[in-house]
């Protein structure tokens, strides 16, 4: 079977980026909007066709085959070479579907949302660049290629967050996102170097192979008690921590909400932030087998901690996009912990399957939540919950689709989120009780904060709006409806037939007791939010006062930003770097300035040669002639 046409999937957005980028001033907005949408529509159709073809026909002896098409790009020695290519494998095909669906919906939505904006074509060019980078990341065949596209995705994110470049807060947020993820990527790079040095290969096929040099020989070289491969994998995971906004590198995600809402939906909800999860899933055999899953434990605990902390912070935020940002961090924590508790064979690999399933459903409902929030923000011209209320009367389609997404994320039975979250909880229950308890708590908190948002925005009291909010145009509501259908129906896809750790299908059954616990916890959260927020009351404020200083800490996001600023400004810049700064200012700069000043003083002295007095010129002439004569005479004599 030939899947080489999949190389077109990233190339169409790349061509779009080049054309829209070069001719951004000359292409009118209506044309660039359609160009972007049609191009992504083509990638969408190709992805669906690939998925249909692969999942129905791709098995050989019950195992899904991996197809790679690559060409050698840079050759350093005969062992060290960097290839570029496409890798077709259950998770990459699934990610193709996810990325192309959400990207297409965001393109269609942006045609309505960004209407009237000056940089409309530039926006679509950047969206195309992002889509190209994400497709390339998903289809990468080796560690270096994934690193290249990883950085490209980070650059696109920078461009898109800083889209409103005249706003200082947007520019600061873009810089923060890029610098934090770049810092994490330093770990990623060192990890790549360590793993590739000791294993001799960068290719995913060779790294992951069960008979390969790593899985059979990881114990050979050790450093400080742990295998070098464990260190390498932990460093690679650091890159994932940065990109997926896990603790401690999560600080960029709330600020990234400065970008336009379609950007938040595409990048910071559905696609880029799951790149870290995808990386761990891609290297899952390594994570599982090396040092009996030491690195995988780290993945699980960081994921669980991030999901808990993010859910707590989301309870107190007032900006709707920030609530959704922390919700994203929490759900990605779920995906990481599901991978972390997973094992490998058949039904034991439930965590892996659950993580990928949740990635799929989360992309749908989180993108829907963000696009719905964008619709609300577009109508009310404010991001804050205090400026919104009773919007169900004015925006029925947005209301219903938002409700569907909220029910899905809360895990209400029947919706997609219920199925995927339930699988994660089962995997946690079977493997790590502490993480299970934390996850159930997070499920409760998720239901509570998302319905807090829902009731405060769509119910509550009717605020004084300057002009009555109206429903968004069709270009914005059609993507909402499509994603709502997927947020409901996506749960019925039998994921365990298609995406598993060892690439063989297994049937998963609904574990009724655990499902009952999960749903009841979710429904309890919904009821609590109903009591607190449906009508305006002072119950939330009384609760906040009762929690006192804990409320204050949570409202300020546990002061992570302030702590990091303190460490960098006072400790790193003030103490550690002061020597180098002194050297730079007083020696390097001084010598450059000194050279300049010396040149000026020499020139000051020499300029007297052009005195304007012809007698001086004559003296120079005669003097030169005499010296020349003396030299000639001296040579003539000898």
């Amino acid at each position, binding site marked *: 079977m030939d899947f080489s046409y999949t190389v077109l999937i990233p190339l169409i957005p790349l061509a779009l980026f080049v054309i829209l980028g070069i001719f951004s001033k000359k292409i009118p907005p209506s044309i660039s909007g359609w160009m972007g949408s049609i191009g992504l529509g083509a990638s969408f159709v190709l992805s669906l066709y690939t998925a249909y073809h692969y999942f129905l026909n791709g098995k050989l002896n019950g195992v899904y085959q991996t197809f790679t098409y690559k060409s050698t790009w840079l050759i350093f020695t005969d062992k060290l070479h960097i290839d570029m290519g496409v890798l077709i494998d259950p998770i990459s095909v699934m990610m193709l579907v996810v990325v192309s669906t959400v990207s297409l919906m965001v393109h269609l939505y942006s045609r309505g949302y960004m209407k009237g904006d000056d940089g409309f074509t530039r926006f679509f060019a950047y969206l195309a660049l992002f889509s190209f980078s994400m497709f390339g990341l998903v289809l990468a065949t080796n560690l270096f290629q994934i690193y290249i596209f990883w950085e490209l995705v980070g650059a696109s994110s920078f461009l898109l967050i800083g889209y409103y470049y005249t706003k200082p807060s947007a520019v600061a947020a873009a810089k923060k996102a890029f610098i934090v993820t770049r810092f994490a990527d330093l770990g990623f790079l060192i990890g790549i170097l360590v793993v590739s040095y000791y294993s001799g290969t960068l290719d995913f096929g060779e790294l992951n192979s069960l008979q390969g040099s790593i899985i059979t020989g990881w114990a050979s070289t050790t450093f400080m008690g742990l295998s070098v491969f464990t260190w390498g994998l932990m460093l690679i995971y650091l890159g994932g921590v940065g990109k997926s906004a896990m603790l401690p590198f999560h600080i960029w995600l709330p600020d990234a909400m400065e970008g336009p809402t379609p950007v938040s939906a595409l990048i910071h909800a559905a696609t880029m932030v799951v790149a870290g999860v995808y990386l761990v899933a891609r290297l899952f055999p390594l994570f599982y087998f090396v040092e009996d899953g030491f690195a995988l434990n780290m993945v699980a605990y960081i994921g669980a901690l991030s999901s808990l902390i993010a859910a707590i912070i989301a309870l107190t935020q007032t900006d709707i996009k920030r609530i959704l940002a922390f919700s994203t961090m929490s759900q990605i924590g779920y995906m990481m912990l599901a991978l972390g508790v997973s094992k490998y064979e058949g039904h034991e690999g439930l965590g892996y399957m659950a993580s990928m399933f949740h990635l799929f459903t989360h992309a749908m409902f989180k993108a829907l939540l963000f696009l719905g929030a964008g619709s609300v923000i577009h109508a009310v011209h404010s991001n804050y919950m205090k400026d919104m209320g009773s919007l169900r009367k004015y925006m029925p389609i947005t209301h219903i689709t938002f409700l569907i997404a909220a029910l899905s994320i809360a895990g209400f039975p029947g919706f997609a989120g219920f199925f995927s979250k339930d699988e994660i909880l089962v995997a946690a229950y079977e493997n790590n009780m502490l993480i299970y308890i934390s996850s159930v708590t997070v499920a409760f908190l998720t239901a509570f904060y998302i319905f807090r948002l829902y009731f405060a925005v769509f119910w509550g009291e009717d605020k004084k709006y300057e002009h009555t909010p109206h429903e968004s145009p069709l270009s914005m509501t059609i993507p909402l409806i499509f994603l709502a259908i997927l947020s409901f129906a996506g749960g019925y896809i039998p994921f365990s037939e298609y995406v598993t750790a060892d690439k063989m299908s297994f049937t998963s059954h609904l574990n009724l007791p655990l499902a009952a616990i999960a749903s009841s916890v979710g429904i309890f959260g919904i009821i609590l939010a109903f009591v607190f927020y449906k009508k305006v009351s002072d119950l939330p404020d009384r609760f906040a006062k009762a929690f006192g200083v804990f409320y204050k800490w949570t409202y300020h996001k546990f002061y992570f930003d302030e702590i990091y600023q303190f460490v960098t400004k006072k400790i790193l810049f003030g103490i550690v770097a002061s020597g180098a700064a002194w050297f730079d200012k007083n020696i390097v700069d001084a010598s450059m300035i000194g050279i300049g000043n010396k040149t000026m003083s020499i020139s000051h002295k020499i*300029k*007297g040669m*052009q*005195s*304007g*007095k*012809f*007698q001086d010129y*004559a*003296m120079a002439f*005669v003097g030169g002639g005499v010296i020349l004569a003396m030299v000639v005479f001296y040579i003539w004599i000898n």
Partner: protein
Amino acid sequence: MIEGISIYEILTLSSILFFIGIYGFFTRGNLITVLLSIELILNASAVNFAVINTYLYPDFLQGAVFSIFIIALAAAETALAIAIVINLYKLVYSVEVKDTETMKY
């Protein structure tokens, strides 16, 4: 040929005249005096020609003839120089060298 004086003394004389002329050219503050110094230089070289002709090649005439050439040349060159000085005077109303120093840094 002058009795009792060797060539060296007269050559020294012409060199001294030459260098006085050069010194005057570099140092004098009036344009006409600079021209005077140029005359001195030219005449010193004419003396040189005449002396070498008389003392070393007494049967030939070329040296003396060339001296006359030099006199004519000096006259022509001085005429040219005076023309320049007159044109300059029309601009700066002075024959001092200090008033011609405008083309400087």
